[in-house]
């Protein structure tokens, strides 16, 4: 089974609409990170969540962590073309040194004008 599973795998939304991407872990989360990857490029750090119930926002993006459900969600409000890309969740599942990250398969977001 997948350690980190993202849903949906792809998403097409009209500009201005809200959307949510989910990331579910099969193991206890010791840190959850959201990154954005533009096609063929590097990973841009968005946000990290550590504690159950934690919620963080940056501009129009909000991320939450539900520790009990071992799940995180990323919500974008009033989407813009600049939000298009691949969103990856990464998690520290080992709680030991070196912070080895495991990643989900990514959610490809397309914003239609």
């Amino acid at each position, binding site marked *: 089974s997948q350690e980190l599973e993202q849903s949906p795998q792809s998403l097409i939304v009209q500009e201005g609409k809200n959307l949510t991407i989910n990331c579910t872990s099969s193991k206890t989360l010791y840190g959850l990170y959201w990154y954005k990857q533009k096609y063929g490029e590097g990973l841009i750090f968005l946000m990290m969540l550590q504690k159950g119930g934690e919620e963080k926002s940056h501009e129009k993006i909000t991320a939450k962590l539900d520790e009990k459900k071992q799940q995180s969600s990323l919500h974008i409000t009033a989407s813009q073309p600049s939000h298009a890309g691949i969103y990856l969740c990464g998690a520290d599942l080992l709680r030991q*040194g070196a912070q*080895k990250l495991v990643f989900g398969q990514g959610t490809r977001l397309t914003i239609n004008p």
Partner: protein
Amino acid sequence: EPEVTQTPSHQVTQMGQEVILRCVPISNHLYFYWYRQILGQKVEFLVSFYNNEISEKSEIFDDQFSVERPDGSNFTLKIRSTKLEDSAMYFCASTRSFLSNQPQHFGDGTRLSIL
């Protein structure tokens, strides 16, 4: 804002040849990582490095792979005898601390194509 830089952006190499991928981590960071992403697949952890030693490595990181910090700024990944299946995007990352409250910052990657 400081960033992780990787060179080259694209490397094409014949199968069986050695290749060295280079990274300059963020200057005050102490922990360094290599990940790879085969086209269409997940980003996978390869190795972590701290204090001139490998901290952890994955099953992918076999004897054909090695890492080095040859000076105070560079961090390299060497593949001794490349195989077709080594074709992938290789990402370098760095962080100040291994603790979960410090995110890893990634470079733009090197696309490695093995012919």
